[in-house]
């Protein structure tokens, strides 16, 4: 009994002392702990951890507890966690999922962050902000935004008598043919001019279709069954099936492995792939994806941070501090130079990025465009219709003329649901 009284008095005294010297500190001195889920499991992980550690060390009011898990694991857990009231304060999700999450009401608008001046929206990637807008409100804060670029193997280019990366899509096709060394039955040693992944990778096919005036949804009605898409897919499919510029049915990991093994002349991918290529000793260059007859396009990829709809005011304020930290000049320079991603801030000088040429190269992309932007049915359209149709065509199960109109109708049906 006596000890308890003693403890209580001490606690009261301590509280009084702390409150008096805390001054402007409101309420308790306990730091606010906020959780942060993301999927940066690959080579960028140490950088993400460093930026979070720096934040936790830089102040004592907020502690960010981060959980990094593979994309499919997070996708399974996130919505059930929100509905159980156990969702993370901050979740980083792909831009394509924002309409779904916003419509479910599990994330909340962060317009007041931009209004408060903690972050200047005009210095952040426009495409990311556009992709995280839902019904007129801003639902996200940029975490990562990047285009895909054309990687090319300089040694293979030299062997084929080529010195510069292609400047048009037709040139790319021509180079790809020249780089290809194909013999049937020699899959384990063949060299392919341009490795095109059709699944588990950035949707490279979309950029190839856009460059010739085709598309997937890209309009109303969806353009996947249009004659222009049929023509575009036929063009690339001939190059694959007749000229063998790419193996058929490559997944993203396989395409990267092929390029890392020095057996692919060109590849379209994001900056995260560069670390593996450097490690494998490939002498590569990075160039913008060239323009096709219908324009210059590449795939825009962005993952953004979102605030839990049930976050308290205190947690929201803590999250805003972290958002500002992530998008500060210092942290964005770290982010860009250690990962090769372009920085989120337009204010960062090129000279600051000099130590990582990949980051600089990726900030020079032209025509970055989101795939299946703003569609709640994105997953169903992509994995249910687009990928299998491309696989059917490239495996010779039917021509684009035969398969695309029906696939386009299927997409229309999904969109009307």
């Amino acid at each position, binding site marked *: 009994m006596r000890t308890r009284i003693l403890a209580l008095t001490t606690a009261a005294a301590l509280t009084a002392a702390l409150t008096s010297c805390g001054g402007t500190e409101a309420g308790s001195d306990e730091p606010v702990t906020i959780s942060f889920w993301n999927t940066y499991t690959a080579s960028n992980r140490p950088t993400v951890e460093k930026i979070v550690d720096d934040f936790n060390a830089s102040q004592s009011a907020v502690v960010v507890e981060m959980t990094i898990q593979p994309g499919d694991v997070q996708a*399974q857990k996130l919505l059930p966690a929100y509905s159980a009231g156990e969702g993370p304060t901050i979740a980083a999700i792909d831009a394509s999922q924002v309409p779904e999450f916003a419509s479910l009401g599990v994330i909340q608008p962060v317009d007041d962050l931009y209004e408060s001046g903690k972050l200047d929206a005009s210095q952040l990637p426009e495409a990311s902000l556009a992709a995280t807008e839902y019904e007129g409100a801003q639902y996200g804060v940029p975490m990562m935004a990047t285009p895909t670029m054309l990687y090319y193997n300089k040694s293979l280019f030299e062997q084929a008598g080529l010195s510069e990366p292609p400047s048009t899509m037709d040139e790319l096709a021509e180079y790809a043919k020249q780089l290809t060394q194909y013999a049937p039955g020699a899959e*384990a040693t063949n060299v392919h001019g341009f490795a095109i992944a059709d699944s588990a990778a950035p949707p490279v096919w979309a950029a190839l279709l856009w460059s010739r005036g085709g598309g997937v949804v890209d309009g109303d009605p969806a353009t996947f069954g249009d004659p222009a898409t049929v023509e575009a897919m036929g063009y690339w499919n001939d190059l694959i099936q007749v000229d063998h510029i790419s193996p*058929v*049915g490559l997944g993203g990991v396989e395409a990267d*492995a092929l390029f890392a093994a020095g057996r692919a002349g060109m590849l379209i991918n994001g900056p995260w792939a560069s670390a593996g290529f450097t490690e494998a000793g490939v002498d590569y260059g990075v160039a913008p994806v060239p323009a096709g007859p219908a324009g210059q396009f590449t795939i825009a990829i962005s993952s953004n941070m979102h605030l839990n709809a049930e976050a308290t005011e205190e947690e929201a304020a803590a999250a805003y501090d972290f958002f500002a930290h992530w998008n500060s000049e210092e942290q964005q320079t770290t982010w860009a130079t250690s990962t090769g991603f372009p920085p989120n801030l337009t204010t960062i000088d090129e000279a600051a990025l000099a130590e990582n040429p990949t980051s600089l190269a990726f900030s020079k992309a032209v025509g970055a465009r989101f795939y299946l932007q703003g569609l709640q049915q994105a997953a169903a359209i992509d994995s249910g219709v687009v*990928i299998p149709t491309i696989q059917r065509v490239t495996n010779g199960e039917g021509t684009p003329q035969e398969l695309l109109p029906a696939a386009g109708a299927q997409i229309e049906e999904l969109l009307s649901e």
Partner: protein
Amino acid sequence: MSAPQRLLPRRSERTITATLAGPRPVPRVRVLRRSSIQRRRTRTAAAFLAPASLVLGVFVLYPMLDALRASFTDARIIGPADWVGLANYAELLADDRFWNALWNTALYAVVTAPLSVAIALGLALMLNRAVPARLLFRAIIFFPFVTSLSLVSIAWAFLFDPQVGTAAAWLSQVGLPIGNGINDPQWAMPAVMLVGIWRNIGFFMVMFLAGLQSIPRELKEAAAVDGAAGFRHFRTMTWPLLANTTMFVVVIAAIFAFQAFDQMYVMTGGGPFFSTETLVMYIYDTGFEQYRTGYASAVSWALVLVVLTISIGQLWYFRKRAVQY
């Protein structure tokens, strides 16, 4: 022979006695004692069953019934759901992707279940004899079953990769190119079947070994004295006496086959163009990629009904062949 069988005639005897005895009260003390023993037995049985029933109820029965309820709604992964009656099941019947997945699952089961049971039985017969290093062989064959299937599938995918795979490179060097490997629609299904068989034969083999070792020595000796040897010994002696083990293994093999998911998810992603998409993969895709919980529950219940029907069929078939010795 078993307890419940013995109990039955006694109970009916008592009923008959009571009926014959008419209104005359049955001796009180005996009834009380019997029923109290029975009550105590029931209580003990219930106490023993309670922990398992509780776990099964909470983690199996309740989720199954809840999924059944969800299958009649348009539930998404979160948020409110409306009752839609049989709409999900109607959609299912018209869904090409569902029928394709059902067909793939059936094909996978028809090939892998009998093959893995047969191979496991062969291995068990071989390793039940005094062969050198048989413990080592048993361990090697059993090992795949204790590994994580999704992890070893990553290794298999690399081995079979047509462009950069080790196995593919070796095979092509000895003049056996595997073409486009697991990316070829013709080869994708055989590849995932191979991994499924490789994974399960160790477990089935251990079951068969246990079965073989429970066959009484005197029966084997008697058969040997009667002149049964080699295949004849197996056909007339071992095989019939293994019936109980075979039933268990066949039922489990079929259930494993209908639950196939991991190696397809990792190695082929269900592709090319759904050629390796199984029912469980389709459930995963609709439930966790498209977040259509209601529809995914309907597909799950279709799978439950398929597995239930097959298991009942198997049990009915084997029941007549059960042996006791």
